[in-house]
C-alpha cells in the first residue's frame, strides 16, 4: 500500500492516484476544539499542535498535515508582543513599524532564536519523528505583504502601497529575507511543502500586486524549490484578478477560496498546478452532512483526472460538525 507521501508525489507528477482525491482542509481552531483543548494551547506549543493535527489526521484520514496556526510567528520574532486568548486567534496589537527609520532599525530575526519561529521548526521535527516521512508535512510562512501588514498595520500598509513606494519596498524586502530563512529552516526540519499565506493580496488590484508582490512571491518560491521543498500559495478571498500573474510563479499547490471558479483557475494556471479547494467554509459549518457530501462529491467528480486536493476555501471553522468534515473525506474516496 502506498504511503500518503507517495500518493502526494504521484499527484505532483501528474499521475492522478486511483481510488481517492487527496483531502486536506486547513485546520487550526477546529483541530484544537476537536481534541478538547484551546486554540491558545494549539498556537503556543508545538507539541499540542502536532498532537492535535495527528489526532485529526487519524480520525478524518487526512492526506497531509500542517503547521499553520496563526499569522504572528514571524511578527513575534521581529519583536512584537503576541498574546494567546483561549478561544480566539492569537492577538498582536502592536505596530512596530511606523516609518522608514523603523524599517532601517528592524533586524531580521534568527528564526532559530525567536521563540515562536523555533516552536514551529520544532513542530516540523516532531512531525517527522512521528510520521517518519510517510505523510507530507506542510510548513508555513507569511507572505511578504501579509507580514508587512502585520508589522506596519493593515490600513497603513495598504495606503503606503499607493503613496510611499520606498517604504513598501524596504519593508517587504526585509519580510522576504525572513520568509526565506523560515522556509529553509522548516524544510531542513522535515517539511516537504511550505505554505505561504498572503491573504491580504486578494484586497489589492492586479497592478499593485505585480508592482510590489509578484516578484517577491517568485523569489521566495524559487528559493523554496532550491531548498528542495514544494510551495502551496494561500490567499483567502477572490483572487481571480491575480490568476494570470500567479500562473507565472511556478507554484506547486494553489489554495483557492470559494469565490474563485475552479475551471477558470485551471484554464489560467494550467494543468501542472495542484488546485486546492474550495467549498465555502461557512456552508461546511452550517449545512447537513448529506449536503456537504453531495457538494464535495460534485467537486471531486468534476476534478477527476486533474491535479486537485479537496478542501474548504479557507480554514474549517471551530463550530463545524465533525460529521461534515467526515462527509468531505467520504466523498473523496471513490
Amino acid at each position, binding site marked *: 500500500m502506498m504511503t500518503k507521501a507517495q500518493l502526494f508525489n504521484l499527484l505532483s507528477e501528474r499521475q492522478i492516484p486511483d481510488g481517492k482525491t487527496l483531502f486536506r482542509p486547513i485546520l487550526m481552531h477546529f483541530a484544537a476544539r476537536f481534541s478538547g483543548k484551546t486554540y491558545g494551547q494549539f498556537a503556543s506549543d508545538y507539541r499540542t499542535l502536532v498532537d492535535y493535527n495527528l489526532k485529526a489526521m487519524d480520525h478524518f484520514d487526512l492526506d497531509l498535515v500542517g503547521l499553520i496556526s496563526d499569522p504572528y510567528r514571524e511578527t513575534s520574532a521581529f519583536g512584537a508582543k503576541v498574546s494567546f486568548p483561549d478561544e*480566539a486567534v492569537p492577538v498582536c496589537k502592536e505596530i512596530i513599524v511606523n516609518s522608514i527609520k523603523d524599517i532601517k532599525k528592524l533586524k531580521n530575526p534568527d528564526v532559530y532564536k525567536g521563540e515562536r519561529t523555533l516552536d514551529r521548526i520544532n513542530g516540523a521535527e516532531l512531525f517527522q519523528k512521528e510520521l517518519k516521512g510517510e505523510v507530507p508535512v506542510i510548513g508555513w510562512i507569511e507572505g511578504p505583504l501579509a507580514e508587512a501588514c502585520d508589522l506596519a498595520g493593515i490600513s497603513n500598509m*495598504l495606503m503606503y502601497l*499607493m503613496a510611499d513606494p520606498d517604504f513598501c519596498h524596504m519593508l517587504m524586502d526585509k519580510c522576504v529575507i525572513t520568509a526565506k530563512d523560515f522556509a529553509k529552516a522548516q524544510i531542513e526540519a522535515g517539511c516537504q511543502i511550505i505554505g505561504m499565506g498572503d491573504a491580504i493580496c486578494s484586497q*489589492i488590484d492586479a497592478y499593485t500586486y505585480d508592482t510590489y508582490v509578484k516578484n517577491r512571491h517568485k523569489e521566495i518560491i524559487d528559493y523554496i524549490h532550491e531548498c528542495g521543498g514544494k510551495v502551496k500559495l494561500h490567499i483567502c478571498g477572490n483572487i481571480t484578478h491575480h490568476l494570470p500573474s500567479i500562473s507565472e510563479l511556478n507554484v506547486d499547490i494553489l489554495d483557492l477560496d470559494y469565490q474563485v471558479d475552479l475551471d477558470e483557475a485551471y484554464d489560467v494556471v494550467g494543468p501542472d498546478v495542484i488546485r486546492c479547494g474550495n467549498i465555502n467554509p*461557512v456552508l461546511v459549518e452550517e449545512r447537513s452532512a448529506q449536503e456537504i457530501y453531495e457538494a464535495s462529491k460534485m467537486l471531486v467528480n468534476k476534478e477527476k483526472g486533474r491535479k486537485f486536493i479537496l478542501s474548504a476555501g479557507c480554514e474549517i471553522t471551530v463550530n463545524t460538525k465533525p460529521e461534515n468534515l467526515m462527509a468531505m473525506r467520504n466523498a473523496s474516496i471513490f
Partner: protein
Amino acid sequence: MEELFEKIAHCVEFGKINLASPYPPDMKGQEGADELTKKAIDEGADPDDVLKKGLVVGMEKIGVKFRENKVFVPQVLMSAKAMSTAMEHLKPFFVSGHVKRKGVFVIGTVAGDLHDIGKNLVAMMVEGSGFEVVDLGTDVNSQKFVDAVKQNPGCFVGLSALLTTTMVNMEKIVSDIKAEIPGTKVLIGGAPVSDDFRQKINADFYSPDPQGAVDYLNTVVV
C-alpha cells in the same frame, strides 16, 4: 464655484489628499481635497454644498467603483483619507449647526473579533455620505452597542465580523439592541455574513459592500 466642487469630488474619488501627496501619480504637484476645500470655504461657498456637491459625490463614485471591482481597498482608503482631511475644514460648521448630518451611525466589530479593515471601510464611506459616525472600535460587546444607541437616539447601527467564529455574536447584539431600543435599524456585514444569516438573526440589512450600506441608509433616513 461648481467647478471647484467638481474638482473636490475628483480629488476624493481619486484619493488626492493634498498638494504634498504623491498619489495619484498623474495628479502629483496639484492641489488636493485639503487645499480645494479650504479654498471653497474661503471664497464663500456654502459648507453644505461643499459637503454634498463635493465630498459626498467623490465618495459615492469610489464606492460604486469598489462594488464593481474597478478599484480595491487601497484606493478606497486613499479616497477616505482625502475625504477626512477635507472634512476637517467643515467641522466648525457641523458644530455650529450650519451643516447638518443626515444622522448618526454607530459601528463596531463584534465581540471576539479584532479585525477592523471592513469596519473602517464602511465607517469611512458612511461618513463620506454625510452621516456622523460613532466608531466603537473592535471587540465590542453587546452592552457597549446598547449604551451607544441610548446615547445617540435614532441612530443606525452597523455590526462587522470577519470570522465565522465571531459572526455568531451578532445575534445577541441585534437581539439586545432591539429589546432595549425597539425600532433601531441594524446593518450587518463582513466576509462570512450573508443575507440568510441576516434573516436568521433578525437584523435589518445586509450588504456585501460598503456602498450598499450607504445606499440603504440614504433610503431609510428621513
